[in-house]
């Protein structure tokens, strides 16, 4: 199925994806109001329902959504910089010339400063600080100027533990590729393992990140895998280990 006919049901628009694009480009739909994340979610749902990934259409989708994102981010920022990008060669040359003249001016000034600095070579100044008893002010506070009770109260407040803030409502699971890499390397260390073993009891996000970690291991030449049949067990083994037929 082509990406153009992807059906969308969004707050501001219902219909196929290509129509949405046309309307956005004709400015009949305001990009400000369009939640691009919803479009992405709709696409992911669509992918899920298809059950297979068509690289061609996925690429097309990424290109289009990236273009929309760029358009939107440009809209969100003020549009002044477009004028800057679009200057004539002679304007650009004037600008550059002014900068070069500036740079030249201060390079010459720097030479002058170095001459001054060199002329002062061999001149030394008294660098010792005044003896403590000669200074007009001392750092010591007058006796009794600080109330011990105030200090006690301040420290007391620091010792009080604030209530723990609950993070339960935040749903974003934090799984890093680095974490999963360590996990996989640990398993590899013991020999071969199946992918299912590596993600026993893990949530979807962890499984996805583990796939990335596995690809990373493959890229670094640390691990290989084989899979006898579609949707079958994926058996992972270290590269140094001689390849055996799974099962």
């Amino acid at each position, binding site marked *: 199925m082509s990406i153009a006919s992807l059906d969308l049901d969004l707050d501001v628009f219902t219909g196929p994806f290509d129509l949405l694009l046309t309307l956005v480009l004709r400015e009949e739909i305001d990009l400000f109001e369009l939640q691009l994340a919803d479009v992405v979610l709709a696409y992911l749902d669509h992918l899920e329902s298809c059950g297979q990934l068509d690289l061609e259409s996925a690429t097309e989708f990424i290109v289009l959504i990236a273009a929309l994102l760029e358009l939107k981010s440009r809209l969100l920022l003020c549009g002044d910089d477009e004028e800057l990008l679009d200057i004539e*060669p*002679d304007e*650009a*040359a*004037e600008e*550059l*010339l002014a*900068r*070069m*003249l*500036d*740079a*030249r*001016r*201060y*390079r*010459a*000034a*720097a*030479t*002058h*400063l*170095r001459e*001054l*600095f060199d*002329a*002062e*070579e*061999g*001149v*030394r*100044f*008294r*660098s*010792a*600080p*005044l003896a403590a008893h*000669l200074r007009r002010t001392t750092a010591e506070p007058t006796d009794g100027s600080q109330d011990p009770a105030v200090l006690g109260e301040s420290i007391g407040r620091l010792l009080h533990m604030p209530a723990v803030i609950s993070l339960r409502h935040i749903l974003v699971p934090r799984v890093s590729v680095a974490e999963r890499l360590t996990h996989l390397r640990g398993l590899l260390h013991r020999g071969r393992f199946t992918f299912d073993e590596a993600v026993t009891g893990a949530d979807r996000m962890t499984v996805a990140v583990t796939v990335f970690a596995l690809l990373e291991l493959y890229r670094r030449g640390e691990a290989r895998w084989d899979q006898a049949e579609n949707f079958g067990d994926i058996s992972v083994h270290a590269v140094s280990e001689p390849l055996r037929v799974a099962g």
Partner: protein
Amino acid sequence: MTDSAELAHTIEALLFLSPDPLSPRELGDAAQASEEEAAAALAQLLEEYAPGSRGLRLRELAGGYTFATDPASEDAARRLFSRPRAFTLTPAQAETLAIVAYLQPISRPEITRIRGVSADSASTLLLERGLIEEAGRSQFGAVLYRTGNLFLKLFGLRSLDDLPDVAQWDPTPEEQAELRERLLRAGEARARGGPVDEQA
């Protein structure tokens, strides 16, 4: 001993004690004399400490007066303290310092824009050596820099007004015209997408 000679002695002693340059007002306040009397005493001391007459010189630097050694004693001082001059200036540091000196207060991004290359390491070193110091923040939150008294002292300047007008180093109109011409040719060639045509 006359009053003025006594005042000159007092001021000489104060100058000896202070590690920082002292202004006639500060000296007068401390010696319980007017600023004018202090200035007159300083003039007398300046004469006594004229270059060549003593091992010390009285210098007007960084908004005040201070004693400095005669450079003639530098070799001996190095043997005694076995420490040469505190530091040298690299071209990048000198350029950064010049930009700060003339355009202060100025932020790092502005220095970088003028130099065309990053000024980060140079300005960090200048900061560490106390030649420049922080002077608040710009409206965009960038730290602003200015030169401090140490800069004036080490470069033999009484104040920033002692710096010559920066416009004196501007290129001549002919040089500017030539530079502009070259830039324009390069710009047009780039706009056409071709190499620079030397015949054009």
